[in-house]
C-alpha cells in the first residue's frame, strides 16, 4: 500500500499543527516521523488513520481518496502511545476484538478467530499471556499486545504513535530490534512517530524530520545524519556544535575573528555554523580554522570530551579520539572536517 499526502493543513485554533505537508510513502516501507513535541507528527499520523481530519489537503491510499472513508473503513492498524488496551478484556479478547466486531457477512467463525488470535500472540511471542488482563502485564508486554490487536484486522497500513515512549531504556532497545524484524516478517507499510532520533535512525528505512507543522527533510537515516538539509535538522539530529557567525565580503567571522573557511556561495549576513563534535579535528595551534584553550577534559570510553574556549569568544564541547591526550590549559587548533553554514 502506498500512501500519498498532499498539502495537508490542520489548525487547532490559531495554532497550525500541520502547515502544508507533502509526503509519499512507498509500499512496504518502515517510515519514521521524527520531531520535537508540537511538530505535528502525531497529528499527521492521526489524520492518516482517520482519527483526525485535515482542514484542507489530500490523503490517498494506492491512489484512492482516503478522506472519503471513516476510520473504521480504512483498515489501518493504529497502536496508541498508551496502548489503549481494553482493561475489562483478557489479552485474548483484546486481540480478538477487531475480528469479533466485523459485519456478520464477513465475520469468521469462532474456531478461525481463535486460530488467528493464537497465531498473532505467537507472532508477538506472548501466547502464554492469553488469559491475563492488561493490568497484569508489563509495559513492554502491553505494547506487543496492542500491536497484535492492531494486526488482527490485517491492516493495509500500520501506524504507531511513540511506540516505545512509555517504556524504560532497556526494554526500548530490545523492542526496537524486535519491531524491525517484525516489520521484515509482515511487510506492511508502516509509519511510526518518535521524538527520539536514535530510535528513528536505528529502526526506519526512511526518516521524515518535522518541525512546527512542516517537513524539514525526508531521507534515509544516513542522509539526514550526514547531510542535514536545514539548520533545524542539523541541530536536532546528532550531538552538534552551533556557532553564530557573520558572513561579509567573502569572509566568515566568529565575533571579530575571521575564520579560515571558504565563504563561496554563502548569503551575506548573520548565519549559523554547524559541526558535529567528532568532526572537529585537533591540531597544533594555528593549524586549523579555529583556535582555543582546553578548559576541561573528561573521558568517555573511546573518546575524550573537551571543553574548549574559542578565541572568538564561544565555548564548545568536542569529542576527540584518545590517541593524543588533551590537558586543561593546552592551546589547540581545530579544523572542522565537515560543516554546514545556514543563513539566519
Amino acid at each position, binding site marked *: 500500500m502506498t500512501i500519498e499526502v498532499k498539502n495537508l493543513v490542520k489548525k487547532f485554533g490559531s495554532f497550525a499543527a500541520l502547515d502544508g505537508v507533502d509526503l509519499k510513502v512507498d509500499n512496504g516501507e518502515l517510515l519514521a516521523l521524527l520531531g520535537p513535541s508540537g511538530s505535528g507528527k502525531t497529528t499527521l499520523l492521526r489524520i492518516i488513520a482517520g482519527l483526525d481530519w485535515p482542514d484542507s489537503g489530500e490523503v490517498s491510499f494506492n491512489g484512492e481518496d482516503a478522506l472519503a472513508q471513516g476510520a473504521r473503513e480504512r483498515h489501518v492498524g493504529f497502536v496508541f502511545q498508551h496502548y489503549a488496551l481494553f482493561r*475489562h478484556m483478557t489479552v485474548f479478547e483484546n486481540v480478538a476484538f477487531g475480528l469479533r*466486531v466485523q459485519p456478520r457477512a464477513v465475520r469468521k467463525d469462532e474456531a478461525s478467530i481463535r486460530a488467528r488470535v493464537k497465531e498473532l500472540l505467537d507472532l508477538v511471542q506472548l501466547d502464554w499471556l492469553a488469559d491475563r488482563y492488561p493490568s497484569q502485564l508489563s509495559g513492554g508486554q502491553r505494547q506487543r499486545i496492542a500491536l497484535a490487536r492492531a494486526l488482527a484486522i490485517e491492516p493495509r497500513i500500520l501506524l504507531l504513535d511513540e511506540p516505545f515512549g512509555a517504556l524504560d531504556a532497556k526494554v526500548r532497545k530490545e523492542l526496537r530490534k524486535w519491531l524491525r524484524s517484525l516489520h521484515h516478517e509482515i511487510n506492511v507499510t508502516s509509519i511510526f512517530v518518535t521524538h527520539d532520533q536514535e530510535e528513528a535512525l536505528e529502526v526506519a528505512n526512511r526518516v521524515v524530520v518535522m518541525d512546527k507543522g512542516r517537513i524539514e527533510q525526508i531521507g534515509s537515516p544516513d542522509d539526514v545524519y550526514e547531510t542535514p538539509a536545514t539548520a533545524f535538522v542539523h541541530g536536532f539530529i546528532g550531538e552538534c556544535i552551533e556557532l553564530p557567525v557573520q558572513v561579509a565580503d567573502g569572509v566568515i567571522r566568529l565575533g571579530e575573528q575571521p575564520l579560515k573557511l571558504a565563504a563561496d556561495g554563502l548569503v551575506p549576513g548573520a548565519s549559523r555554523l554547524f559541526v558535529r563534535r567528532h568532526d572537529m579535528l585537533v591540531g597544533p595551534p594555528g593549524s586549523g580554522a579555529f583556535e582555543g584553550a582546553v578548559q576541561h577534559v573528561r573521558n568517555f570510553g573511546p573518546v575524550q570530551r573537551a571543553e574548549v574556549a574559542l578565541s572568538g569568544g564561544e565555548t564548545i564541547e568536542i569529542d576527540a579520539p584518545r590517541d593524543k591526550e588533551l590537558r586543561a590549559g593546552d592551546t589547540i587548533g581545530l579544523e572542522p572536517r565537515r560543516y554546514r553554514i545556514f543563513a539566519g
Partner: protein
Amino acid sequence: MGLTLSWLSVIILIPLAGLFLRSLELSPEQFWNILSSRRTLNALRVSFGLAFAAACVNLVMGSIIVWALVRYRFPGRRIFDAIVDVPFALPTAVAGVALTALFAEKGWLGAPLAALGIKVAFTPVGIFVAMIFIGIPFVVRTVQPVLQDLDPEIEEAAGSLGASRWQTIVRVILPSLAPALLTGLALAFARAVGEYGSVIFIAGNLPNVSEIAPLLIVIRLSEFRYADATAIAVVMLVVSFVIIFAVNRLQRWAQSRIPAR
C-alpha cells in the same frame, strides 16, 4: 486512637448491638410469626419490590443523564448538573409534601395523569415515584466520574479496529462502566428501601397495599409492639449490611481488574 474507637462504638455500635440483642430476646418462633404475618410480609414486599423497580429506573435514566451531562454540550447543562444533587440536599419531609402536591389529583402533574386514568398519589405508584426521586443522585454521582475519566483513546482504538459506534458502546464503554453502574444501582436500592420521609406523604399508607416497611416499624412503635418493630428492623438492617458488603466487594473487584491509572 482509642478515643476514636470508643466514640465510634458508643455512637454506632452500641445502638445497633442493642437492636440485635433485643431481637435475640425473641424466640425463633416469635420472630417467624411476626415476619410471616400478612401485613409485615406485604410491607416488606412493597418496600423491597418498589425499591428495586425504582433503582432499575434510576439505573437506566441515571445512565442517560450521565451520558448527556458528560458527553454533550447543551444550554443549561451546568445547572442541570448541579440540581442532580437536590434529592440529596432537600429534607425528605419537604420532598414528600412537594411530590404529593405535584402528583395529587389536582396537582400540576397529577391532573393531566388523572385525565389519562393514571392515579399516582396515595397509591403504590406514588411510592415508586418518591423512590425514583431520592435514588437518582446515587446512580449519577457514582457513574459520572468514571465516564469522565474514561480514556478517549479506547473509543478511537475500537473504531480503528472496525467497531461501529453501537459496538463500541456495548462492548467497550458499558463494560468499563459496569462496576460503577452496579454500585449506583445498589446504593439507590439501599436508600429507597429504607426511605421514610419522602414516601409516607404520597404513599396513602393503606395496610397491605401501600404501606412501606419503615412506616410499619413506626406504627408498631406507637402501638408499643417493640418486638414487632425490632424484628422488621433487623431484617432490613441485615439487608443493608449485605448491600454494603456487596458494594465493597464490587469496588475491590473493579479495582483489581481495572487499577486506577
